[in-house]
């Protein structure tokens, strides 16, 4: 069986998670690699969640929230954006390629878009091969 990457997706409850549900109700097919974690707001996503995901063996992490201006809590998604920019260089230092983490806006009506993003990212991860970081991080611990 070919290598199947593990992609963890943190989705906000109001837009992206609903969008993923819509992909389901409209039977849009996408890669099995993605495993979804629901949070109330993308602003809730703590850097440690991302690190934990990599440490537990995720090959990639997708963070997704409402489009700018649509945030159910006004500006949580902007906070997520800021943290994303702070986090990525740090991850790179730890030997995690920037392609392994991605921030995307997916609205509740963009089921297709969600599926498309997942497939794109899976393809990238497949070409990159498994993340070595699990081992590295183990040393840190």
């Amino acid at each position, binding site marked *: 069986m070919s290598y199947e990457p593990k992609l963890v997706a943190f989705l906000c409850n109001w837009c992206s998670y609903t969008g993923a549900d819509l992909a389901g109700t409209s039977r849009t097919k996408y890669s099995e690699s993605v495993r979804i974690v629901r949070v109330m707001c993308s602003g*809730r996503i703590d850097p440690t969640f991302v690190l934990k995901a990599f440490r537990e063996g995720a090959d990639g992490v997708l963070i997704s929230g409402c489009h700018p201006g649509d945030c159910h809590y006004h500006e949580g998604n902007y906070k997520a954006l800021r943290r994303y920019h702070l986090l990525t260089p740090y991850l790179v230092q730890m030997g995690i390629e920037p392609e392994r983490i991605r921030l995307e806006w997916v609205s509740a009506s963009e089921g297709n878009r969600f599926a498309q993003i997942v497939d794109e990212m899976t393809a990238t991860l497949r070409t990159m091969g498994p993340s070595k970081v699990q081992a590295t991080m183990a040393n840190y611990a």
Partner: protein
Amino acid sequence: MNPQRIGVYVCWCGSNIAKIVDVEKVARVMARIPGVEVSREYKYMCSDPGQELIMKDIKELGLDRVVVASCSPRMHEPTFRKTLKLAGLNPYMLEMANIREHVSWVHENQELATAKAINLTRAAVHRVMVHAPLVQHEVPVNRATMVLGGGITGMTAALRIAGQGRKVYLVERSDELGGRAIGVGRAGPHMNSVAALLDNLTTRVNDSAYIDVLTGTVVGEVSGFVGNFLVRLANGTRELTVGAIVVATGTQPFDAKKLHRSGYGRFPNVVTSTQFEEMAASGRFTTESGKAPRRVAIIHCVGSRDSETHSYCSRTCCMDALRFSNILRDALPDAAIYQAYSDMRAFGRDAEEFYARTAERDVTFLLFDKLLPPTVSEAPAGDPYPLLVTMDEIATGIAIEVPADLVVLMVAREACSDAKDVAKLVSISVDKDGFFIEKHPKLDPAATTTDGIYIAGSCQGPKDIPDCMSQAGATAARVLAAITMGKVKVPATTATVNEDLCVGCQTCISVCPYGAVIYLDKHRVSRVEEVICKGCGTCAAACPAGTISPRHFTDNQVLQQLEGLLAAEEG
């Protein structure tokens, strides 16, 4: 730690899930996880027999946690929480794994789909292990209400709310009720008598035994939260306790002096729409020289739709200008009446028809580009008329000058100069133009992000009388609902601070969009006003010490979920 007793229930959803996911296998794998007491699959978990099954297990096997692997929690979480509740379990001891929308409906490879379903369900099991029972608090609601602003909007809101046991304090800064509507004779395409409406409202407000009219009064300070606000009036010591506050402070007219080109303040025969209303009320239309005007030019968008003053449209001026034309035509059958406009915004019911009928009364319309508004200047000596309005008439492409002996400026309506102070007072926010920001521009135009504080009328953005009254009524609906319920529910999934660990850095306070976190100087720690918190968890993500976290979405719960999600394949 006490051994947990978890029940796992995997749903077939007919063939919707079972067709792709090997539900038996999922159930089998879950059964092996320590702490899982029972793991079953069933055709329709959401159906009554399905729910019966869960309740039976809870009672007979003494389950303390439940995982349902079926459809999206957005569909059936309320259903199964109810199930737990009925079985005497705290509803928050439930976790759902979404193996329909996120697995069977989007994947085709049965093997991979099953593996994923197992991961998701295991994640749910791991998560539910660290779930804690939550209780939904309720706070009592004070039945009194304060309405800020005694214009048509404020009075309407007061009248809609006030009644037996529902006191309303109507606070008006000036000494009389009526606000901007005072002196306005008629309004709208049907020339309704505003005076009559005002008189009707004022009488009813003054007569009402349930409305306490406080004119000449300013609010000094507001503290508290939804259902229980404490209002200190600036004048003297009086304090009001209210459950809700309706802000209806309206607008103020734009000062045309700020626009040199308008000629206002420089030429006596240039008047604002406000002054024209007074003329109309007096019924005497005269120029400075005391004669009746023979050529009147009405200029639209003075201070509106203009980058150097206000970029927004004041919404009501176009209809006012048309109304003015009719008033003038009634009074001065032979006068030439010009309207310099940029877009004729006659959008209300019967407004377009009113525009057409006005045109038929020999009113001449002149079109200008909003970037090149008309200029009012003094006519050269010897001209029969004292003023000249010059503009590029873009419908003819001709630069024209309009001799006039009376110029009426349709001045913008702008947020009151002290709008920001009012906003701070009740902790709501203002937009770039100083208008109060509603909770949601589409679906919640009368509420604000601060529970218990409502906005109505033009203080939220310029409006005509019917729209103001609608919004006033909208605020009343919320207030009445809260009062009849007697209490407001506080969501259980709010954030809490572990005050022992809090270092008092106040990062949480800076990131909270609702100002729900307060700082206790005495203890040097933050504390969450649960009544205000919406449980978004932004604070938790920001807290450097990891001491603040939203219930039901704690770091631990998410981390546990991740471990389950990514645990190595088995069986």
